């Protein structure tokens, strides 16, 4: 093991190298570029003996990965925002064809208006594609989770593509000390991919072609069941990763100081770090507050949230995206997970940090105080610059 001071982008690059990917195909886009630039360097220097396929668009990048993956290659790509949206059709293909492609996504706001800064609108728009979604909080978590994502995606009980996201600039261009596991450790954790049972070289086969109404629904149900199995398989994989590296990031919904909490804020990505400091400060003032981090959005940690709901009176959800005509994406999902459960804490949604606006400690504190002490609207936009009250 060595420790390097690297960006979230390089954490992705090092993870792909350590995973010994066979095929990388990518198209550069701010703020993802450094990920694939570094991988190109690894390939050019011979440090990573992989095929690097240069393409004219993200659509083609994903297609190249799907095709290589269907033949048994371990594949990796990375993108962001508009590039991810251009991939949208192929994201459905990757999941439908059951190709375990792993992708790094640097969360960047979607245009217009044009933005290069972070929010989660790009990946939330892909939540129904059948991809596993991890949201990273630190560069270390990004590297570790990417390695786990390969093993999870390729697991015979799963066989689904997985994306590991990181907030633009807060992680992608910010350097932190990151423990890089040794190649021997990674090899022990992540052996070469088992031979693909999808396509075989030299044998005429069709993948994903015409299927009548008599079979289509059953193929979709297989994806649904695989996504359900993903939860338990991931927990086993993370235990194994912890055994080898000593690091466990806490499963699908890691919690912070929730054991005796009566008010909990649900967060995603880097806002979690800010919120953790706020929880500590408010605890010092005697408030029983805690945090729950949505580390995965797909599969959605329904079971973990229902367990949490048995212990707390109020749950706030901090969303870095918005579903027009409804509410924050995480808010609607949390509400959906809890409605059929016996315990119904008071629930409130906060939309903040769109297009790279900072989610400050003061904002998080206000949201928690709002939850604790006030009757607020069900859902609100935090610190909106408006002459009328934000709603």
């Amino acid at each position, binding site marked *: 093991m060595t420790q390097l001071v690297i960006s979230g982008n390089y954490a992705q690059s090092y993870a792909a190298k350590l995973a010994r990917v066979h095929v990388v195909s990518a198209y550069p886009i701010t703020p993802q570029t450094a990920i694939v630039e570094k991988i190109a360097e690894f390939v050019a220097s011979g440090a990573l003996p992989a095929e690097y396929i240069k393409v004219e668009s993200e659509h083609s990048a994903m297609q190249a990965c799907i095709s290589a993956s*269907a033949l048994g290659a371990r594949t990796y790509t990375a993108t962001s925002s508009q590039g991810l949206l251009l991939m949208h059709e192929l994201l459905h293909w990757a999941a*439908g*064809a*059951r*190709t375990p492609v792993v992708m790094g996504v640097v969360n960047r706001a979607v245009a217009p208006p044009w933005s290069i800064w972070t929010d989660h609108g790009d990946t939330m728009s892909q939540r129904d594609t059948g991809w596993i979604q991890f949201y990273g909080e630190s560069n270390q978590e990004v590297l570790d989770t990417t390695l786990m994502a390969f093993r999870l995606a390729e697991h015979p009980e799963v*066989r689904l593509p997985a994306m590991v996201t990181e907030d633009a600039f807060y992680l992608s261009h910010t350097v932190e000390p990151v423990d890089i596991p040794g190649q021997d450790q990674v090899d022990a954790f992540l052996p070469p991919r088992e031979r693909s*049972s*999808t*396509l075989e070289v030299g*044998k*005429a*086969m*069709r*993948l*994903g*072609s*015409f*299927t*009548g109404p008599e*079979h289509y629904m*059953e*193929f979709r*149900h*297989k994806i649904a069941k695989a996504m359900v199995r993903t939860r338990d398989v991931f927990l086993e994989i993370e235990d194994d990763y912890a055994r080898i590296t000593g690091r466990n990031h806490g499963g699908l919904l890691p919690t912070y100081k929730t054991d005796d909490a009566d008010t909990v804020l649900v967060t995603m990505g880097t806002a979690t770090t800010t919120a953790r400091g706020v929880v500590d400060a408010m605890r010092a003032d005697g408030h029983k507050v805690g945090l729950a981090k949505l580390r995965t959005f797909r599969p959605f940690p329904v079971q973990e949230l229902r367990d949490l709901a048995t212990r707390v009176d109020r749950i706030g959800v901090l969303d870095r995206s918005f579903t027009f005509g409804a509410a924050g994406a995480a808010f609607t999902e949390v509400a959906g997970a809890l409605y059929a459960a016996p315990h119904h804490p008071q629930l409130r949604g906060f939309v903040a940090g769109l297009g790279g606006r900072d989610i400050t400690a003061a904002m998080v504190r206000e949201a928690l105080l709002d939850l604790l002490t006030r009757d607020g609207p069900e859902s609100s936009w935090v610190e909106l610059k408006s002459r009328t009250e934000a709603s």
Partner: protein
Amino acid sequence: MEEDLPEAPIATTPSDVNHTASWRTFRPVIDLKLCTKCNVCWKFCPDDAIAFDGVGFPVIRLDYCKGCAICAEECKPKAITMVKED
């Protein structure tokens, strides 16, 4: 049954095992006395629904023809008539 299907949607047969003409309402009928063997019907057919017999006359492959009538529209000598299915 779901359990009998492969995990990924793969097939080892060519796609023409799928007969895709069940929703046809009108079928093209060719009057070979008017046909000039120009192949325009074959060129315009958006599916693979036109083949040729041993002497070069077009033959409609009714397992694939969806009755779109493009062949009848494009046929210069008006040799193709669309006839309602029973």
